[in-house]
C-alpha cells in the first residue's frame, strides 16, 4: 500500500487540554513541527493557561516531521499519535 510523503500527527484534544502549560512536545521537537495558539483573544482579558481549552495544540509543519516520535514519548497524557498515513486511492 502506498503511503503519503509526510507523517501525520493526530492530537487528542480532550486529553491535551492545557498545551500551553505543558508544552513538553513543543520543546522536544527538533524541527518545531507543532505549535500552540490561544483559542480566544479578548480585550482586557488574559487567558489562563491552566484552564482547559484556552489554548490549542496544532500541527503546523508536518513536512518537517521525521517521525522520530520524541513528542509521543514525552507526552504525559498520551494525546499524540505519529504515523505515516496510507495514501487514499
Amino acid at each position: 500500500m502506498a503511503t503519503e510523503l509526510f507523517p501525520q500527527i493526530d492530537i487528542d484534544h480532550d486529553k491535551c487540554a492545557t498545551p500551553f502549560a505543558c508544552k513538553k512536545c513543543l520543546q522536544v521537537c527538533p524541527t518545531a513541527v507543532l505549535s500552540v495558539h490561544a483559542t480566544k483573544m479578548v480585550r482586557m482579558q488574559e487567558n489562563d493557561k491552566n484552564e482547559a481549552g484556552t489554548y490549542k495544540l496544532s500541527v503546523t509543519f508536518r513536512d518537517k516531521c521525521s517521525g522520530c516520535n520524541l513528542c509521543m514519548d514525552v507526552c504525559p497524557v498520551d494525546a499524540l499519535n505519529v504515523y505515516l498515513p496510507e495514501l487514499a486511492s
Partner: protein
Amino acid sequence: MCRMCDTLSSDKDTVWYKDPRQYSNRLYKLREPGKRAQEVQASAGFQGRLQQAIDAKSQGDTGTHDTIISEMNKRALMHPGCQVLPLEEMMAIADMGTPMGAMKCICRETTRGCEECSLSEYTCMGLGTGMYKWERWPERYKGGVEFLSPNEAKEWMEHWDRKGMVHMVMQEGGDFLGGICNCDYPDCMPIRNRIDNGLTAGLVKGEFVCFIDFEKCNGCGDCLGRCNFNALKYETTTEKANIDQFACFGCGLCETACPRDAIFYRERSKLPGLANVW
C-alpha cells in the same frame, strides 16, 4: 532597491526603514462614536492555506501545492512584509523609532511555548504610539511590555546579536513600521515560511550581502554556526570560511562574530547578479 523601498520610501535614495515617514504614525486613531475596536481573531486563514499546500504535497499532488504557494505569494506581494537587516541598521532604527516597547516574540510563543516575561527574555519590539495601548490586549502582550530609550534599545539589540539572533524589521500594512524582532530558525515563522515552504514574499532579504576577505580570514571558525540561512560554511579546500551570496540574507551575524574584521558588507542592489535577488 527591494519591493519594500519601491512602495514605502518617499525618495529613492533612502531605504524604507530609515525613512522618517515610517515613524510618524498618528498619535490618536479617531473612531466613529460608539464604535469599539475590533476584537482580534485568532487568524487561521494563512496557516490553513499553508496546511492545505503541505497536505497536497504529502499526497503527491505537487501541482496543487505549487498553485497554493504561488497564490499566497501573490497575495503577500500586495502588502508590505518583513526584511532582514544587520545590527548596525537595527541600531539606526533605535534612534528614530521612539516609542519602543520590548515584548515577547509571538512566533516563539507559538512554536515553543516560550513565556518571555522580562527584558532579558523579550526578543521582539513594538514601535509606534499604538504601543501605549498595549494593556488593552493582555493576551496579545502576555508577559508585559517594557519601554526602552534609544540607548537601552541598542544594548538590547547587541545582546541578541551576541546570542545569535537574526534581526528583522516588520511593516504589517499599517501606516508605519510596526516592529522589530530577533529570532532564529526554526522558531521564526517568516524565516521558516520562506526557507522551508517557498513563501518568498513575506520576508525580504536584506539590503546587504556578506563577503569574506580571504586575506584576513584565518579559518578560526568563530562565525560558523551563526548563519540561519545555510549560506556560510567552512571550506576545507581553502581552510577558510566561505559565504554563498545567493543564499545570504544579509543579517550580518557572521560579521559581528568575526574577531579579525574579515567579513564585509556590499550593497545587494549594486551587484549585478544579486540586484534582483530579494
